[in-house]
């Protein structure tokens, strides 16, 4: 794209690029021209979506349809469970689990003969046999409201022209042309936007704190060090709509007076790095990064800094130390980064999803945004739905929706018809929510009131086969591993919590252990230096609160109700045994006996509880109890 030097030129570019999206904006089955968008997110790419695209190109040429159809990549559709996804515009037809070899049938049947390829349609798990053709008819999408993910699945993230056609950089242009920095801050404050990285601090208030600092060097930082296991919303935004993050950073920088920025991004996200780097180059070439942006006196440029695998670097003071090139150890606040951040200069750190919301607020106004959501939390939140749920994927919903709506209506319920046990939100800093709280309206306040937190938006669904003590231990293992070691409560305290949990899962737990878990957990919450340490006991304390009966079963009855903790299990061969001898042959401890074609028996004294026999049994006659 050639250099854009003013608001008028941006509008001209938008008008010129608009036809790029024409087919995607109409919603008719014209049958004349069609466009195919193939999901190019990390999940679908690991299932060969690049090969699908290549084959589609080839088949379109081979079928002589080059003037009637085209195919390109887009960002994550969010329906990762059934990826790779191919969507056909303007028909709104949504193909799932597409394989590279399906390209020919899609082209010849759908594009040439106007016949939908029925075997690639989505089948509603609640209504077997019912195939859903249109994306807009899928329950997964009906309750969603996409703002931060607006362009994911709609534009090609590698083309700035498509972003500009989709109203891109209009929010920035409006700021530079019509608004003072104070007005921009007021607009964002009035919108009610708050930090999507976890804590939920009001974004406008944060900017105002940096704007109030004396003039001089200031920095704008985007925190893209998405570390919560099971959360991938920031990655999807960076892969699917990188320009929205750049535009958000530009608007923030204008508002509080920064001229230099950094994106601190996880090195484990190579695709996001590639797309973002490409977007930065394109924005620079178009004059949207650099000196005198859109002909104004505002100048700003940014560069990428890679995180090197340290969870604590998501904490803002630790992140700043890491950008400076040191060990990512947190420092006490105050001073807050808005006062003294990078190289002791005022610095604002915003998360990816927060920044992706900013351009839309400036385009459509604070009133529009604050009209969405619950009374106290405005706008939408992106959740990464994962675990034992039918529709694993990325969903964006208005604040105030209930967990039940997310799990059952959007998520399609629990896998294999099992019973829901808990939903974990907030990652290693959050807590587990039990069935009785499924109807709570989700926002920052309600989640903290039940001992969990919004966090960055990971939402892991667990069923009756998950042991809550084991889950608490899993999270502590994580925080213990990721503790930077600077302060004692986190370094030593979490280690002790883990030791206690380990004993409980091994059948060595005592009632005193439970009391110790509680009191030590509270002490760590009160005394650790940074948010990582302070929140590390949350998974333990919240599971103790809502699933105390499971802790009791482990401690008093030496029993794991979910059948997970190996030391507490006995393997047992039921009457279903056909006497094939497979278990006997595979048993490493040689503790299974029995005649051929007769029921076998496990010697519980010699059994090492490895579970090999259960895996080897062809008729599932070996159970744990």
């Amino acid at each position: 794209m050639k250099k854009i030097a003013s608001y008028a030129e941006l509008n001209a570019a938008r008008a010129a690029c608009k036809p790029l999206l024409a087919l995607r904006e109409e919603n008719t089955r014209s049958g004349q021209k069609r466009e195919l968008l193939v999901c190019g997110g990390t999940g679908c790419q690991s299932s060969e979506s690049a090969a699908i695209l290549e084959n589609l190109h080839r088949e379109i040429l081979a079928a002589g349809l080059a003037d009637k159809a085209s195919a390109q990549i887009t960002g994550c559709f969010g329906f990762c469970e059934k990826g790779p996804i191919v969507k056909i515009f303007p028909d709104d037809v949504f193909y799932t689990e597409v394989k590279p070899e399906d390209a020919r049938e899609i082209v010849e049947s759908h594009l040439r003969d106007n016949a939908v390829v029925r075997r690639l349609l989505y089948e509603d798990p609640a209504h077997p046999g019912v195939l859903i053709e249109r994306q807009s008819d899928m329950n997964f999408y009906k309750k969603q409201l996409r703002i931060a993910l607006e362009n994911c699945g709609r534009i090609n993230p590698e083309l700035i022209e498509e972003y500009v056609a989709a109203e891109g950089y209009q929010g920035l242009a409006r700021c530079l042309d019509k608004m003072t920095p104070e007005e921009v801050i007021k607009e964002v404050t009035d919108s009610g936007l708050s930090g999507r990285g976890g804590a939920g601090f009001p974004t406008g208030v944060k900017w105002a704190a940096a704007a109030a600092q004396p003039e001089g060097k200031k920095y704008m930082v985007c925190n893209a060090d998405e570390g919560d296991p099971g959360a991938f919303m920031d990655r999807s935004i960076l892969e699917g709509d990188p320009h929205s993050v750049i535009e958000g950073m530009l608007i923030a920088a204008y508002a509080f007076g920064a001229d230099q920025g950094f994106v601190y991004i996880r090195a484990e996200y190579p695709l996001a790095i590639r797309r973002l780097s490409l977007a930065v180059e394109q924005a620079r070439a178009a004059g949207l990064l650099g000196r005198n942006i859109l002909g104004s006196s505002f100048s700003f440029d940014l560069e990428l800094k890679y995180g090197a695998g340290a969870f604590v670097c998501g904490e803002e003071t630790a992140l700043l130390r890491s950008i400076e090139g040191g060990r990512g150890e947190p420092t006490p606040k105050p001073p807050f980064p808005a006062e003294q951040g990078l190289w002791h200069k005022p610095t604002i750190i915003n998360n990816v999803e927060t920044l992706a919301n900013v351009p839309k607020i400036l385009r459509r106004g604070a009133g529009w945004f604050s009209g969405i959501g619950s009374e106290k939390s405005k706008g939408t939140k992106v959740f990464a739905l994962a675990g034992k749920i039918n529709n694993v994927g990325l969903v964006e919903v208005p604040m105030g929706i209930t967990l039940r709506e997310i799990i059952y209506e959007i998520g399609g319920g629990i896998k294999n018809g099992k019973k829901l046990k808990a939903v974990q939100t907030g990652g290693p800093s959050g807590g587990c929510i039990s069935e009785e709280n499924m109807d709570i309206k989700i926002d920052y306040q309600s989640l903290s009131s039940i001992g969990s937190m919004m966090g960055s938006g990971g939402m892991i669904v667990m069923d009756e086969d998950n042991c809550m003590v084991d889950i608490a231990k899993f999270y502590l293992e994580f925080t213990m591993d990721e503790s930077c070691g600077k302060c004692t409560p986190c370094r030593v305290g979490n280690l002790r919590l883990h030791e206690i949990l380990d004993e409980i899962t091994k059948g060595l737990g005592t009632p005193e252990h439970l009391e110790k878990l509680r009191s030590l957990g509270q002490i760590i919450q009160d005394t650790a230096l940074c948010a990582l340490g302070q929140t590390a006991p949350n998974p333990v304390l919240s599971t103790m609160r809502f699933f105390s009966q499971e802790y009791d079963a482990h401690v008093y009855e030496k029993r794991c109700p979910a059948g997970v903790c190996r030391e507490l299990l006995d393997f047992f061969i039921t009457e279903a045994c056909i006497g094939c001898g497979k278990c006997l042959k595979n048993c490493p401890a040689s503790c299974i006996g029995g005649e051929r074609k007769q029921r076998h028996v496990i010697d519980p004294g010699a059994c090492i509880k490895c579970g090999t026999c259960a895996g080897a049994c062809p008729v599932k006659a070996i159970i744990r109890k």
Partner: protein
Amino acid sequence: MPQSPQGEDCKKLAAFLDSSIDSSGRNESALIKTLYEAQRIFGYLPKEAVFLISERLNVAVSKVYGVISFYSFFTTKPKGRYQVKVCLGTACFVRGAEKIARELESRLGIKLGETSLDRKFSLESLRCVGACGLAPVTLVNGKGYGRLEVKDIGPMLEQYTDGKS
């Protein structure tokens, strides 16, 4: 002076340092980026590389090692030709990633974090690759294997016998 492969790698690193040293003197902030590049060149961070970086960026060796040991991405030990990384993020964990990890350990005869003596395989755990729809996930030299079950591990590893990559 005889040319060892290490010597070649040192030259490459020196060339990178020549091209990237910041004239502003804020060299410490280039440290992590430089360590990345060095690890890309050598496959790990040998002493020679660390000393060279320390000297050229004017950052104390102790400080460079402090940074290396802090971040899990960096390693001072050579890795195997096939790097097997099993995701132990939450989504994979609740879908049975532990069993996958145990199976990998027993098949490869090494524990998580170790490299086999013939340097063919190294085994590591990962914290979420963000492909939770495919959970549980394992990567071998960057190629993803999803929705794994214990019985898939043998066939997956068999693809990485000698002569193939």
